[in-house]
């Protein structure tokens, strides 16, 4: 009875990003048609967001399991520097350099996992610290100087080659990666386990899910993807010791904004991509109107907060509606005063046990 109504409501909420995107395009098409309505603009918005997109995916995978990875920016910096310096300084083959770089990203993720899972450090703190360490080590390795670019054309062509109608080939990578992750997250047990852990870690453990293994894996995956993002950035615009941290916020903004789209309440690939392109279109359009370097940051900051506020308010209204529909008595299921002392003590001792082993 309430389902038909619900579907209708969700229709509006689920695709609100698409509407906003449409509105952006219409506004700027009327406002600054000469600049905005060009193939060059479309292509630059598209290819300019690929690295952000890969970063967002890197952030999203562990976030689904409820784990923050703030080191992705630093890992991407590592990726951009090492992928080039392996070639120019150590004279390695291009493909070997790329693979090696991404493997180093994977190792960074594995170390993150170790700190989070084995040392029981909060993921926020662990990855914040790891990020700082990674940048320090990279700076030390390259002596604070950005390595020379490889002279061969192939390095740049890896991402910048054009295909069909003036779009850079790098967009193709993003779409392929999105398809792959979509498959993993939506159609395989791995995705289910990550969502279950993110929903309720305790319940996941008690349902037999290897929580530690999957958290570890998600962080490794995140490091690997961040390394890949660094490689792409380096090929597209050259190595940089600073770009990564600037991409952290847009990545998180896109992931959270994406979680309000398509399947509201869940982090999802297509919602994230949609969010990235809506934001980029808005920023690009405004850049044409008022050339201001601070626009980007303002836009992303507002989007991040608005997205989370929106998600929270949706949850709250849904919570209220749920109570309404079920007319459940207040917190019948929390045996609060009944069991809390023993269970708290037990949790601590579990942590201690694992810590000392």
């Amino acid at each position, binding site marked *: *009875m*309430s389902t038909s*109504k619900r579907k209708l409501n969700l229709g509006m909420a689920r695709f609100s990003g698409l509407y906003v995107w449409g509105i952006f395009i219409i506004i700027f098409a009327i406002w600054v048609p000469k600049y905005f309505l060009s193939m060059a603009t479309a292509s630059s918005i598209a290819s300019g967001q690929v690295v952000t997109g890969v970063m967002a995916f890197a952030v999203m995978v562990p976030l689904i399991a409820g784990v923050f990875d703030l080191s992705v920016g630093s890992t991407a910096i590592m990726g951009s520097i090492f992928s080039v310096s392996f070639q120019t300084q150590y004279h390695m083959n291009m493909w070997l350099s790329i693979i090696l770089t991404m493997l180093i990203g994977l190792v960074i993720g594995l170390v993150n996992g170790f700190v989070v899972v084995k040392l029981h450090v909060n993921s926020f703190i662990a990855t914040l610290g790891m990020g700082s360490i990674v940048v320090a080590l990279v700076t030390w390795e390259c002596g604070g100087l950005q390595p020379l670019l490889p002279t061969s054309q192939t390095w740049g062509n890896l991402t910048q080659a054009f295909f069909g109608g003036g779009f850079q080939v790098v967009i193709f990578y993003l779409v392929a990666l999105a398809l792959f992750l979509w*498959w993993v997250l939506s*159609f*395989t*047990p791995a995705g*289910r*386990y990550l*969502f*279950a852990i993110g*929903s*309720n870690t*305790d*319940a*996941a*453990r*008690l*349902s*037999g*899910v*290897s929580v530690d293994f999957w958290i570890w894996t998600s962080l490794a995956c995140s490091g690997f993807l961040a390394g890949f993002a660094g490689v792409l950035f380096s090929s597209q615009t050259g190595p940089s010791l600073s770009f990564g941290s600037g991409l952290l916020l847009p990545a998180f903004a896109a992931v959270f904004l994406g979680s309000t789209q398509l399947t509201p*309440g869940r982090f999802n690939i297509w919602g994230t991509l949609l969010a990235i392109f809506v934001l980029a279109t808005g920023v690009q359009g405004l850049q044409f109107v008022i050339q201001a370097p601070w626009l980007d940051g303002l836009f992303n900051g507002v989007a991040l907060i608005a997205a989370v506020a929106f998600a929270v308010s949706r949850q709250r209204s849904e*919570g209220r*509606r*749920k109570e*309404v*529909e*079920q*007319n*459940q*008595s*207040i*917190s*019948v*299921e*929390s*045996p*609060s*005063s*009944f*069991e*809390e*002392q*023993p*269970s708290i*003590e*037990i*949790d601590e*001792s*579990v942590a201690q*046990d694992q810590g000392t082993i």
Partner: protein
Amino acid sequence: MATGLTPNSDGMAAGTTSTNGVVPALAVTSVSKTFSGNRVLSNVSMTLESGEIRMLLGGNGSGKSTFIKILSGYHHKDDGGEIRIGGEILPDLNPHAAHHLGARFVHQDLGLIQDSSILDNMFMTGKFPARFGTVDARKAKQLTNASLEQVGLDLDVRTLIRDLSPVQKTGVAIARAIGLSDSNPIRLLVLDEPTATLPAAEVHQLLATVRRVADSGVAVIYVTHRFDEVFELPSRVTILRGGSEVLTTDSATLTREELVGHIVGSEVLAVVENTTTTFDTHAEPVLEVEDLQTPLVNGLTFRVHPGEILGFSGVTGSGRELINSAVFGATTRLGGVVTCAGVQVKANRPDLAIAAGIAFVPADRKIHGGFMNLSARENISISGLKSFWKFPRINRSTESHDALNWFQRLAVRPAGAISAALGSFSGGNQQKVIMGKWMRLGPKVMLFEEPTQGVDVGAKAEIYRQFAEASASGSALVVSSADVDELVAVCHRVLVLRHGHIVEELTGRELTVANVTRASLVDSSEDLANGVHP
């Protein structure tokens, strides 16, 4: 503070429209509530005199919590109804007005801060008495003592909440609600399932407190799931079902069967007696627990046979609450050997316990049991996703088919809503979904912790029916529960714990509520004197 309990007649406020001079503490006239076209409360009326106790009963979805939430200003009521407290109209959605008119609410979770003292908790919601901007400690203490005395508690005000027994905590919450009032007299106290998590033995104390509060002139609405209280505390009883008032009568005129009948209505309540099954006592035990050690249990040994339903009883702190979770690995097992069908299960490894054929339904669905924001389908399949996985994808249609099958077998309501988030189901139906998650694995041993806590009567009957079915199909069940009626009704054998030890084993005719309760309560100082470690 005594002034907080000025009898109603003194505190009669202006604007009273009463004709005969006695203003009821609460007068509710045909209040209804409709949520998006769905009427959950229709034309409920209720009048409470000061000093009256009113038991409010009803299953989940009966409208009782909506009713309470309208009173407390959380929900808007439909146009047409009227609520008066002490003669004055209560405006909608205004908790402050309810408070101002003298209505107080104590919710089940009590809202006390565990690590603070009684005194600090007492003033948390109001204002500390202050002198020159600093807390006037002496006055605060006096006020707190006076409030505690009102509810018949004699406690040191510096005691931390966490050190109190459950019933003492409830007492403190009540004292805080009705005491320390500003100038307005307290007219109405609403207790929302105050005994849901209390051990049976402590319920008596709480009922005495409630009596005391009512005798001082406060009208009390007492919401409960437990039937015994209705007969223990002579009062008026109002039963709601499907949003309407079914009956209001004196508790003395009701029998237990009538009461259940009114609450459940025409739905047939599968009465528990005929669900008792038999099992082969000569079969090899499927679960063997030797010398189990947990923080509250010191060396516990028991066996369960296939098809047997074993119960654990014991008051809070007896160690009963942690047996199942320690066997399964949900909480720390400090020592002991657990063997399931010949396979030794390592401590603290739920995944290995599951692999050995053990299932565990924890007490707290929100915290340990389910994934509230994931769909029911995902909740059911999570325990064994591999059976649906065939490269390149999880087969959604067989997964849905399986979920639907369990919805049907467990009579989950709303029927077929496998894509709805678990959190949107009622407590009883959440519990059924979680049971489905385990039953699809065909476990050899199922461990249940408080299986029907916060579950309405209808769902309870269904859960008991599933117990019987699981037992008949050869699963061994271990049920740990604070509800002695439940244990006696469903179990073949009950082990009673006190201070971490099994003190009694009851089966057959011996297995009665009276025996179990007695065994769990017998003077504990006796044990201490004999040198048994508490």
